[in-house]
């Protein structure tokens, strides 16, 4: 990450729709909405369950492991908050439980990204989002990857 001094002052706002999700992240836990009626995972959170129409939810922990499903390496930022980050890779991680989540890698240069690479979640405080703690990913350790599958 760029140092605070060189970082654009622009910050990323929040509409509030992710507050519960990020509150779990701040405690070091990756939790997703899961329907108590049909047990389907639901990311991003919805008001009612798209699978069964119930509105009875839990925030359940996921293992935090998954695989890189796809990515893009951004060489020209379209948003001023990220001008100092380029090049950076946005990854879409398919969690082992099924849902996919947008994130970034913390330990993998863009050139070393590979499809289906096993990854695991870490948490990182982000200046861009008013010190919000974000879920990021790193290469899975051998034991984690083996445990995942």
């Amino acid at each position, binding site marked *: 990450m760029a140092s605070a001094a060189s970082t654009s002052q*622009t910050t*990323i*706002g*929040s*509409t*509030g*729709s*992710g507050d519960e*999700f990020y509150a779990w992240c701040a405690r070091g836990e990756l939790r997703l909405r899961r329907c108590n009626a049909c047990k389907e995972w639901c*990311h*991003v959170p919805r008001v009612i369950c*798209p699978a069964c129409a119930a509105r009875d939810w839990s925030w359940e922990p996921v293992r935090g492991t998954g695989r890189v*499903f*796809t*990515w*893009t*390496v*951004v*060489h*020209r*930022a*379209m*948003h*001023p*908050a*990220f001008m100092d*980050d380029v090049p*950076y890779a*946005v990854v*879409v991680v398919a969690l082992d439980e099924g*849902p*996919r*989540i*947008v*994130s*970034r890698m913390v330990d993998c240069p*863009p050139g070393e990204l590979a*499809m289906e690479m096993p990854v695991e979640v870490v948490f990182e405080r*982000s200046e*861009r*989002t008013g010190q*919000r703690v*974000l879920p990021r990913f790193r290469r899975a350790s051998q034991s984690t990857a083996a445990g995942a599958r």
Partner: protein
Amino acid sequence: MTERARNRACIVGIGETKYQRDRSATLTNLGLQLEASLAAIADAGLERSDIDGVMPFPNLANAEELVANLGCENVRFAATVAMGGASPVASLALAADVLAAGRASAILIPAGWAAFSGPRTRELVLDPARLPGGAIAADYYFPHGFTAPMQWYAVMAQRHMYEFGTKREQLGAVAVAARRHAQLNPNAVMRGRKMTLEDYLASPMLADPYQLLDCCLETDGAAAVVVTTEERARDLAAGVVRIEGAAAAQPHPADEITNRRDFFRTGLGAAAPEAFGRAGVRSGDLDFAMIYDCFTFEVIHQIEELGLCKRGEGGAYVEGGRIELGGELPMNTHGGLLSEAHVVGINHIVEAVKQLRGDCGERQVADAELGVVTGWGDFGDGSLAILSRG
């Protein structure tokens, strides 16, 4: 083609402004759309008072201000189809039904913007409320720097390249075809600026795999079409183009692009069989295709979703000049959003009408009788219209 159904809706008027990239340009979104609308109404041989329906593009001008400026005193139908770049073609589909129901007799569909001299995409992204997904994009995409259509669609292209072996050179074939066609179009912004595959491959990387020359233009311009009933169309002077079948659909979920069970399933995949069914034709009957080309891979993707080839074969499909003039199925003969202008897809409808009227000059597809035009919007909304020479 099977025997044509009677009473199809018809496109009877088209109008365009000059398409340009000029920082000193002064026309606003509304001003551009009014100029194109007046041209389309005149082209149809109608009076402004004949327009009794209007279907504006979302967020670029509203029906009230369009109608007030145009002095259309008899408007009884106004609606906007909220499908981003799929809106103009989806509006054709809805307009046809509205006309058939007798709720309007002449519908104006305008679209366009001052996207070069006015606010640019990089400024619009500062307000996620203007973007598809709204709060979802703001709270789950933006914190990671996933902030723009180029990036959202790049992840689809990247996965497609992995699963199906789609190549950068195949994306380039789409860009090169568009640029080649633009050389034959006096209103194309990129006329006079030829481009080879080598030029394409050497262009700056923006959001891998998208390079600069994978991306649509930022331009000022507007276009409009007028749609009426077949009965009314017979009395008008302009070349008549029939809407044989049109449809639109959303992907699921439409507001979140990463969590689709089938990652490559878009609205067009659902809409295409409906439109072809209504028209009673098959893809092999088409003489040309105007495909919404915000980025090169979206053309390859839509070729698959249209059913022109199987999933995963879109990259090979565009090779060898198949989509160029003289090829099996010429696409985007105006140069498209990539090389004519980004007029949010309504320029694709206008070009299809010109082809079917035989007005395309040196870029004319010989004996063009049937073509398809598609729209792509937001996170994969899709629309298509199958048009024929009336």
